[in-house]
């Protein structure tokens, strides 16, 4: 082989490597909510249909789309701003002026996942797991229990992070970027909630019925109420009555009584010493679908093993569901963890440490969590506790980290002297 031929040979071998990475990449796709699909036992054609409808209504991670893009934002079906979404979506890039796009993938996606399902690559290393936006439930916000967070609530979380969790503070991001990210989180959440509603709607169809792909069904019936709940969040802000002018020690005493009493009942879950060790076997609303599916699966596997009366048809159906459910649990969920009532002696408050933050947590409970509300079931109705009682409970809870038993053990001065060595 002469030298030229050798170089040609080398060039032939190396050239594919040189150009690899410069060509097209596989754009990331939104993934389906397989746990919900397996729970409802949707057949493959219905899964495909859910996926198609979502693509049509929301576009892809690289090219998000929202209905009514030509209209003004206020008039559009989603109330979402396509310009902001375009900044947050897509691959991480910046142009010659330093304008960045792909903010979600840069800052959020590795934990919260491309789909906003809380299943990003780092998710399983974190405790607590990152939030899954798809059920449309958010925990730390100023609004009534089941209401959506306001824009300000989400901005606060992005800017300050969530204390006691892996969610960092993005306080250094410019306002416009925070704004774009909040818009994108809303987009993913609306998309995820529409998906869940579609899955339920498919499951509720009769044997030979098909989902009518009409505007009335998809937009008016499914999308609009979800968008409406976001648009009216500001009307659901909990505005507590002013804190009564009571001496702090008196208020703390009253709060302690309520904490252990039948009205507050806090000790049942937060534990007799408020260490968060009272009720630790419960799951939150994001985990329940996973544990329920896992329990269905165990039952079905047991039945396949033991039930000798199964007809062939039933056996095939069961096997198919076992395959679907085990794949969903393996690929689309994290090992379930129980909901942990907060240890109130540490002074770490995920939803904010201001008295008003704690007031809202106690008044409305925490959405999606076992934590119940001592306020009314519906806004404006009568609740279990009066505002002054809730304020006392706030005072008591805020006093707990300062009690002597909450303090770490005092540093023991070294008793070792050189003589001991």
């Amino acid at each position, binding site marked *: 082989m002469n030298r030229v031929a050798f170089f040609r040979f080398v060039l032939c071998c190396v050239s594919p490597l040189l150009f690899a990475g410069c060509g097209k990449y596989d754009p990331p796709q939104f993934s389906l909510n397989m746990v919900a699909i397996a729970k409802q036992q949707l057949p493959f054609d219905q899964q495909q249909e859910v996926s198609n409808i979502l693509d049509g209504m929301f576009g892809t991670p690289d090219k998000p789309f929202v209905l009514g893009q030509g209209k003004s934002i206020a008039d559009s079906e989603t109330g979402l701003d396509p310009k902001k979404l375009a900044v947050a979506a897509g691959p991480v890039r910046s142009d010659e002026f330093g304008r960045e796009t792909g903010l979600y993938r840069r800052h959020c996606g590795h934990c919260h996942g491309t789909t906003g399902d809380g299943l990003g690559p780092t998710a399983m290393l974190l405790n607590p797991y990152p939030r899954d936006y798809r059920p449309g439930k958010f925990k730390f916000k100023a609004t009534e*229990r*089941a*209401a959506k967070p306001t824009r300000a609530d989400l901005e606060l979380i992005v800017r300050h992070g969530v204390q006691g969790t892996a969610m960092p503070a993005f306080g250094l991001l410019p306002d416009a970027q925070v704004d774009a990210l909040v818009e994108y989180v809303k987009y993913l959440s609306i998309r995820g909630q529409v998906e869940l*509603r579609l899955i*339920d*709607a498919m499951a*509720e*169809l*009769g*044997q030979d019925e098909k989902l009518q792909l009409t505007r009335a069904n998809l937009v008016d019936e499914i999308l609009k*109420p979800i968008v409406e*709940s976001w648009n009216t969040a500001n009307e659901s802000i909990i505005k507590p009555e002013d804190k009564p002018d009571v001496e702090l020690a008196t208020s703390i005493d009253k709060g302690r009584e309520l904490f252990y009493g*039948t*009205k*507050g*009942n806090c000790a*049942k*879950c937060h534990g007799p010493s408020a260490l968060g060790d009272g*009720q630790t*076997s*419960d799951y939150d*609303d994001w985990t329940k679908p996973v544990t329920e599916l896992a*329990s*269905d699966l165990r*039952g*079905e596997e*047991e*039945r396949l093993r033991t*039930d000798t*009366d*199964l007809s062939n048809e*039933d056996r095939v159906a069961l096997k198919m569901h076992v395959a679907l459910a085990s794949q969903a649990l393996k690929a689309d969920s994290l090992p379930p963890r129980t909901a942990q009532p907060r240890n109130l002696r540490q002074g770490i408050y995920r939803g904010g440490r201001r008295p008003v933050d704690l007031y809202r947590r106690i008044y409305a*409970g925490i*959405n999606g969590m*076992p*934590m*119940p*509300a*001592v*306020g*009314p*079931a*519906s806004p404006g*109705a*009568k*609740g*279990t*506790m009066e505002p002054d009682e809730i304020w006392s409970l706030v005072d008591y809870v805020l006093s707990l980290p300062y009690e002597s038993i909450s303090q770490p053990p005092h540093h023991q001065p070294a008793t070792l002297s050189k003589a001991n060595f």
Partner: protein
Amino acid sequence: MMRKLCTTSLILGAGIAWASGAAAADWATLKGRFVIDGTPPKTAIIEPTKDQEVCGKHKLYDESLVVDEKGDIANAVVMLKTKLKDNEVAPDFASSATDKVELDNKNCRFEPHVAVMRTSQTLVLKNSDPAPVSHNTNISPLINAGINPVLAAGGDPLEHKFEKEEGLPIKVGCNIHPWMGAWLVVRNDPYAAVSDKTGEFTIKDLPVGKELEFVFWQEKAGYLKNAAFKGGKSDTKGRFKIKLKPGENDLGDIKVSGGLFKK
């Protein structure tokens, strides 16, 4: 004059009586009895893990499937799927349109286990258990907004309304007492029923002559598919269609395959 008035009122009265008599005959009643086809599974006893001093005194058992020794299935739900126009609903229901439907926390369980309400009605949450047993009622609907209020022992009942109809019964739980569970049926129309201890259900005052679609559901099995009854069988989604005749329409024994409950 007096006599004339009397006669008029007599005729009028007779007229009204005739009209209402005719109306009653124009409506149909649907009834049936859910029976398990196969051996009923054993019912698990629940050992309370909280408030044992009170809850330990009550006999608590797993209520996800309640079957008596004859195989009668309690707490199975029958709902009308067909959407009716206002004038197809019996006018008698107007008087109960804004009634209150109670869901009590009593003896460390929910009473009733399956509550049925209309979107026009108000749900009343109660706690009849003695101190120190406080409850919370965690209702997680699919369509409506969820609630989870604390119900203090000796506290006043709380009220709530659900604005929208739910396609399936929704789950109710108490986070303090994890064994407690119940279901809530929220419908726009008044045509839903739950089977009683003997497996029997009755839905009254249904429209006659129109093809109606119903669905059978039970919490452990989900849709009660392929359940055979007098003159028919539910499909793979637990549904069946029927045209009702005036008066009683009895489906007889509705045989539900025991396999559906093996979970």
